[in-house]
């Protein structure tokens, strides 16, 4: 699909380039300093997912850092997707952490703007937003492909990572979203993970528009699917998390389920969504999210017939950094 020359930067990239349907999952962010908490969670995912996202202070609440989590996940035999947001760091810190993430074993990075501090538990904090997510994507490309900092100063060795972005096909202005995706690709994105999908017709329209512009030949789209464990959790997402679009029909479906059957219905909904996404042209994989519900993610992967994960030719022994020209 993608005619990128050179060897893939990660196993995830190799898999996507081989046309295999990818499965990634979101790690539960850690609220402590115990490395075993991260290791335990990662070990459960080993062999079940192609990569696991280590979030960067999600919902603008502090957690164990994504770099540290990424290193622990990598050491547990799972490929981490290390997320970095523009909220908490300026361009100096972001470049330092991109190099740091690569040095600590991250072969996939996901670069995003980040939730505003007003959404979190430290609303009095100063937001940085020195650069935006597109700037960060291009800065990551400059480090990797040009072997320099944004300032032009030469690196002693280049980081090697597959560069990801996020996009939300479900938020206004809907007509701008495929254009924004194209801008992110122009800036440097090689794959995107979307916001949670509860609205397949809307996604389908977005994919069609992006396909028409030719941009899907240059980027892999991984769609996020939420495994709802209760109606309350889904309602919370709809009402409290900005940018999550839960159509009334979906909400009603869970509302109709009795308390004992809600988890089952949420699981069925996720399973149906995954099945639909596997059939949708232009969708290259799914990203599974559940709040404190890794067990249900694992059950979903099994039930959806996504196991075993396909083997793909890619050498993890390839040098992590390419030496500079």
């Amino acid at each position, binding site marked *: 699909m993608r005619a990128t020359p050179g060897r893939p930067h990660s196993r995830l990239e190799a898999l996507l380039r081989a046309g295999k349907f990818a499965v990634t999952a979101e790690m539960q962010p850690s609220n402590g300093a115990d490395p075993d908490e991260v290791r335990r969670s990662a070990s459960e995912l080993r062999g079940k997912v192609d990569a696991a996202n280590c979030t960067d202070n999600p919902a603008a609440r502090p957690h164990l850092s994504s770099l540290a989590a990424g290193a622990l996940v990598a050491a547990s035999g799972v490929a981490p997707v290390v997320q970095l947001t523009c909220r908490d760091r300026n361009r100096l810190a972001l470049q330092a952490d991109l190099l740091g993430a690569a040095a600590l074993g991250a072969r996939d990075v996901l670069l995003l703007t980040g939730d505003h501090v007003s959404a979190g538990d430290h609303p009095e904090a100063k937001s940085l937003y020195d650069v935006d997510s*597109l700037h960060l994507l291009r800065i990551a490309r400059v480090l990797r492909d040009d072997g320099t900092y944004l300032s032009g100063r030469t690196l002693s060795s280049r980081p090697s990572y597959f560069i990801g972005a996020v996009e939300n096909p479900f938020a206004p202005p809907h007509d701008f979203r495929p254009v924004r995706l194209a801008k992110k690709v122009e800036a440097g994105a090689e794959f995107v993970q979307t916001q949670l999908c509860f609205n397949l017709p809307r996604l389908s329209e977005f994919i069609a528009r992006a396909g028409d512009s030719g941009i899907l030949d240059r980027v892999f789209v991984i769609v996020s699917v939420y495994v709802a464990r209760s109606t309350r959790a889904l309602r919370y997402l709809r009402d409290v998390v*900005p940018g999550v679009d839960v159509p009334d029909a979906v909400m009603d479906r869970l509302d109709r389920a009795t308390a004992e059957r809600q988890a089952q219905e949420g699981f069925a909904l996720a399973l149906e969504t995954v099945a639909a996404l596997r059939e949708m042209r232009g969708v290259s994989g799914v990203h599974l999210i559940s709040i404190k519900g890794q067990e249900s993610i694992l059950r979903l992967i099994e039930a959806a017939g996504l196991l075993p994960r396909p083997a793909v030719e890619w050498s993890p022994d390839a040098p992590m950094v390419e030496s500079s020209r």
Partner: protein
Amino acid sequence: MGLLGQALIAIEKAVKVPLFGCRMCGQCILHETGLVCPMNCPKNLRNGPCGGVLVDGNCEVYPERPCVWVRAWEGSRRLPLWRDHIEHVQPPVDWRLQGTSSWANLATGRDDVVPAGWPRRPDGGPDAENHDPTVT
């Protein structure tokens, strides 16, 4: 700064603040953003909306206000000129220009200066040959 420079800033402010809610970033891209000032976005986004835009098109930080980028997109659709400029990848903000006159910076080419490592790309963005001599 001379008296003329001060006067230019005062005039630019007097014109653009009431009309566009201008924040005097000194590197104006209003014509590329549907004549809506992107510096009013609480996340300073120069390249499009974040993923948190509410279902009604309002801002996640100020839910009573429309998203700056929803307005920018709509504004760009109405422009007879520069309609497609909203597709350009804008370079990072040079925070040293905050409070200076973008008109003066346009005239001198200062607003086109990007960091030396920011590459020229075929997207109509600023010419990367205008490297910032102070950043090495």
